């Protein structure tokens, strides 16, 4: 009898340890066919949306920051975008620029954490970042230094890098001092050569050839690379405001996950750095575009294995953008505009490190939250991850050993930098063969 007809593999990961979220992967293969593939996120609902009900709009930025220790700024910015939109407020160019700088800090620290401690060891053949660091100390040192610079940039405007407290509806609580900005500007400029080297290094790492067809969804702005604002766009030409999100994107529940899935036109879609670069590379400065093309990657890319290069490009851009925005910094006496709440529904979104983050708030006349809804990027990517795993495993070949299949699954999942990727090696293998 042909071996492929008798081989049955069950890869079941019951608990993903040391992760931001709690999840599992269940994979059952019979012969050359994947019978079951489920990314199971079973973390109990955290109920943040319910916590917000009855709270003042003024509390929202600090509360939603607690949703994620890695991308709190994204939650804060999407929230204030929604509430300021509802209240008819434009906080002005100073606030927009400083929010963008703060967001750059978050991108830098989040992306550098992922590249150096989570993703790179996979491709260099190490079981962990610590093992990799023994052989590549300079690489890891550079990564940690860049990550630290991102943290410090967040602290400059948010008072601290974890759950920062600088942002309020209408602007900021506090404007940084000019001499602190000048010191940061010097550090940002000095780090540009390091981030450029990071891009070239990530591009030099051999990656699997695994092109797939998928729809990219990301914000797009008329004049700048999408970070803290923009219209929601898709690679098929969709361009909508945040308020129209529900007309085009559908959230749905599946039995095996406590996180809602999302579809666009009844299909999975991609959000995140690769989606952003694929749709808005033309919004990058020429020198950054040139660096992108120097990598040898054909952009836009159809391979999720180019995600690490995409993150490195965004690190380099975020450093240069923050430096650009801080060049002519002026302290302002009032870093916020007055806010008068009004009843209604507000919509807002921004580009978290992991992709589009959409918020909707219903507010009463007193400014209290009546209803809140938050759609994070990892939730949106779930269906795409499962689709990618199916396609990628078939392309990789199902006859590989269980250990090889497990490692490949981990690589594919980590390309999306989901919160559950915080564990360096999270797939414990239980295989059954007949």
């Amino acid at each position: 009898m042909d071996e492929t007809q008798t081989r049955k593999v069950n890869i079941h990961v019951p608990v993903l340890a040391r992760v931001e979220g709690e999840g599992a992967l269940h994979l059952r293969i019979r012969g050359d066919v994947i019978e079951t593939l489920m990314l199971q996120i079973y973390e109990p609902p955290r109920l943040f949306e319910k916590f917000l009900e009855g709270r003042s709009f003024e509390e929202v930025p600090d509360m939603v920051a607690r949703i994620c220790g890695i991308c709190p700024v994204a939650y804060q910015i999407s929230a204030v975008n929604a509430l300021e939109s509802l209240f008819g407020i434009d906080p002005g160019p100073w606030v927009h620029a400083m929010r963008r700088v703060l967001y750059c800090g978050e991108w830098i620290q989040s992306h550098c954490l992922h590249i150096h401690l989570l993703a790179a060891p996979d491709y260099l053949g190490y079981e962990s970042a610590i093992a990799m660091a023994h052989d590549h100390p300079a690489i890891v040192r550079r990564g940690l230094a860049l990550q630290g610079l991102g943290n410090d940039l967040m602290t400059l405007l948010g008072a601290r890098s974890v759950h920062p407290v600088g942002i309020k509806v209408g602007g900021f609580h506090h404007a940084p001092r000019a001499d602190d900005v000048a010191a940061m500007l010097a550090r940002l400029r000095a780090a540009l050569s390091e981030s450029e080297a990071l891009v070239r290094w990530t591009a030099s790492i051999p990656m699997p050839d695994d092109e797939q067809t998928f729809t990219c969804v990301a914000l797009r702005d008329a004049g700048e690379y999408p970070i803290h604002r923009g219209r929601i766009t898709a690679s098929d030409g969709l361009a909508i405001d945040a308020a129209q999100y529900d007309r085009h994107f559908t959230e749905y529940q599946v039995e095996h996950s406590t996180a809602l899935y999302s579809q666009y036109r009844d299909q999975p879609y991609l959000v995140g750095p690769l989606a952003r670069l694929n749709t808005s590379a033309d919004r990058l400065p020429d020198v950054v575009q040139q660096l992108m093309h120097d990598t040898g990657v054909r952009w836009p890319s159809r391979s999720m294995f180019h995600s690490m290069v995409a993150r490195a490009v965004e690190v380099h851009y975020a450093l240069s953008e923050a430096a650009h925005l801080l060049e002519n910094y002026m302290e302002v006496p009032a870093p916020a505009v007055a806010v008068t709440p009004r009843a209604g529904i507000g919509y807002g979104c921004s580009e978290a490190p992991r992709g589009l983050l959409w918020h909707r708030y219903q507010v009463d006349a007193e400014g209290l939250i009546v209803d809140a809804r938050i759609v994070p990027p990892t939730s949106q990517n779930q269906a795409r991850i499962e689709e990618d795993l199916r396609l990628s495993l078939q392309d990789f070949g199902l006859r590989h050993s269980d250990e090889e299949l497990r490692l490949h699954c981990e690589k594919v999942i980590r390309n999306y930098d989901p919160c559950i990727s915080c564990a360096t090696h999270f797939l414990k293998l239980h295989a059954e063969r007949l």
Partner: protein
Amino acid sequence: MTRLAIIGVGSPSGDDQAGWWVAQALERGGLSARLSCQTRIVALDRPGATLVRHLCDADAAVLIDAVHSGQAPGVIHRVDDPASIEKDTRVSSHGFGVASALALASAIGALPATLVLYGIEIGAASADAAPSAAVSTAVAALAARIEAEAVARWPREASSSVILSGRITPA
């Protein structure tokens, strides 16, 4: 001039703040002004790999963290070679924490020449719990011990002038 980092690690959950409380006691007690070295006192909230950065900038470091080893709450542990701690022994009360960060720092050659870890044994740490009497007593004792050791090693001299004092809000 020697750069000394005194780093309290913790989280906002009850006695898991023990490391922060020691750092805050040393800061309030004006330790920096009594030492000849550049002294930075910080409290870090589950820093993970970020702890490596703080170690990179120091010639000597004292780490203080809450620990679980099965002994009675309030027991103080001293580890003179903390980089040798096995990562999976779960000495720290945090999932990823001091042990992994030290291993990473060691791998990239960023460990300070002098490195000491103090652990304060704690019991259960819940979010709204008040400090336990045993841990409060240990915090005061450990702060006094660290201060005495630091003053003995880096006594302030008349000529020393550069004193750095870090903020002690958990970063």
